[in-house]
């Protein structure tokens, strides 16, 4: 068994408004000079450390977990998982 690190990112679906991202965009515009920024989306990240036989298994466990425990609400969120070193 070895330790693995996973990053679970939960963000709003494209069709749900993201007031936080919008506010940051607005603040940027007020502060000027940031018109190169075309979008800001906010989300939540969980950094998880877990034991598994290998990376593949670790990732599978994470996917099972986020689905089974509704770490994200599929009505409103999308979820991605990245294994990191």
């Amino acid at each position: 068994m070895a330790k693995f690190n996973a990053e679970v990112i939960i963000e709003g679906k494209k069709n749900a408004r993201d007031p936080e991202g919008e506010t940051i965009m607005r603040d940027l515009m007020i502060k000027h000079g940031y018109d190169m920024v075309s979008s800001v989306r906010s989300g939540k990240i969980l950094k998880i450390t877990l034991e598994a036989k290998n990376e593949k298994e670790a990732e599978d466990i994470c996917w099972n977990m986020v689905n089974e425990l509704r770490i994200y609400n599929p009505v409103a969120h999308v979820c991605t998982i990245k294994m990191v070193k």
Partner: protein
Amino acid sequence: MTQETVLRDEINLTKEEKEVVYKTLNREPTIPEAAMLEVMNSEHCSYKSSRPVLPKLPTEGPRVICGPGEDAGVVDIGDGLALVFKLESHNHPSALDPFNGAATGIGGIIRDILCMGARPIGLLDSFRLGDLSDPHTKWLLKWVTKGVGDYGNCVGISNAGGDIEFDPSFQINCLINVGCFGVMRKDDLALSRATTPGDKLILLGGSTGRDGIGGASFASKNITEDSESDRGAVQIGDPYMKKLIIEATLEAIKAGVVEGLKDLGAAGVTCSISETADAGGTGTEIQLEKIRIREDDMEPWEILVSESQERMFFVVKPDNVKKISKIFDKYELPYEILGEVTDTGKCVVKYRDQTIVDLPAHLLTKPPAADRKATYPKYLNKLNQKWLPKEPKDNELNDICRKIMASDNMISREWVYRQYDTEVGLHSVVKSGQADAGVFRLSEFGTKKGIAVTFDGNSNQCYLDPYNGGAGIMMEACSNVAAVGAEPIAMTDCLNFGNPEHPQVFWTFEKVVEGLADAAKALGVPCVGGNVSFYNHDEVRDVAVKPSPVIFVAGLLDDVEKAVNNSFKSPEEFIILIGDTNTEIGGSEYTKVIHSSDDGQVPKVDFANAKNVLKKVVKAVNEGLVTSSHDISKGGLFVALTEMAMAGNLGFKVGLKRIPADTQRSDIKLFSETHGRFLMTAKQEDMDKLISIFAEDEIPASYIGSVTKEKKLIIENDENQVIVELSIEDIKHVWDTRMEEEMEGKK
């Protein structure tokens, strides 16, 4: 002991403090002992500067059950019930990390109430910040509000009020004071003491980490840069765990299995094991490795002084340990038995079979006081108390009124208190923003009584005239609770000042305390506790904060249904002004906002009549003769009238001619901040009775005008000419929305 010791010149204590330590011990302290002594001798824990001054405050009264010296004041409110309340500062942590600083401030003050055995039911908060338009102020305000809100909301304790002042002296060193109150059956009173040798010492709650460790001076030299950045990590509050601790603690008290109870705040475990031993006349012995630590490499001294949040310390009879563990288990709260009470008078700490601490408890709890010098501050020489501004022309008054209502210190605080749950608990009858004081009913505790609570401060007046400023805030806070119909019964204070080693600062401290004390005596309102925060000094600009006492006054209503708020109720009702108006505009909003001046006479409390006025106000409200009531304070008569009109969505027409005053100037009648004045509205048929209540004591009660249906503010001068005519909607719009616009970047 075969422990490594700390040499005399390595320990950060004053000469006198060292003297006491070495004389008592007759040896060099060990590293953990030195750390414990340093933290317990700190200004924050030892009150070394303030201790000689605080006894000026009156602390006795028929209702007082616990005065200063316990974690919170306790007063008898009848029906077998007691009110517990306390106010505390969290200034320095909040200036650096406003969110966690304010949140853990709330966490700490809740613990103070809980550890007396009471269910905390209400919170208050006071902010002192730089100018609102400043970006740094906005950043602080945004996050302290969120810190107070997130913590209080999550533990389910309702907000009952607070106050905010904006002034450039708080730009960097902001002041964040928080208060909490709770109610309990008198029999449930829990004290922070360990009276019986053999009783077990239990630590409940969160694990212990390096949070809030200042870094003892002798130890810091060995620390590499890397560890320095992890050390003294900011304290993170955990309101969810706090909620479970509250329920578990109250359940344990109810089950009768708690002998002594102490919260862990400043100085953590050190404070708990020494104060409970000293107060109980016993000793304590603990096994340090029993404490759950969060970081493997913590040194024993760090564990002893850590200020990690969400921990409580219990003294429990051996026979009751099983019962109390069952309660903790129900809430899945971790705990451990650290050791037990002894009869040695000492605090002994063992670690891996070695004794690492062996100190007399009183050496930790009763360090020597410091002898501070006080000298008259130079800046006061420059002030001219006789100064009066040039009288404005009548046609300038509309503008002046508008400016005052839109100023930082006048505008609505709704943006802040909307973020607080003001309803949870079903207690709040008069809510934040509705009156001078918050009113809570106590039906949950089986009585129809009510509690009125308020925070008050006036840093500007305390700066310009510390004595009268101090007395003034006491009068004003008591007026706040009287205005809603409650008799003021006790107060607790939080004294925020600069560096006490600066004699000119210390002088202002002494004068403020004298002012508070004299007013408290005149009003018959005892001080049952408090807190002192020194060293509020902005190093960068080298300025101290203005002297900023904040006080928390609690009042009692016999029948909570009699409470009134400050909104006009219906057109045609009469407006009555209680009290005389004097030419007292020093430190007033008018002087500050319109004339940018520090000159003028700061309002003085009329000690001889103060108590009577409040008594009569309370009587008038309780006899049901008034439909709304408001005390006159910041901004004077004009602001008080306007606030009542805006709250009721009605207008008024008032004549200045009928105002008893020592002047004929309209601006002074409108904006003077003379204490002991109230505005009340009454139905025509109740007028005679109302006026006669005040007439008994020769207190002026003057009819000055009426509420109007037309939503206009109309004020006539002594010649009955209209000098102010404004639309309520216009004024209200700016007043309502300015803070939100500033905070939401719409400005």
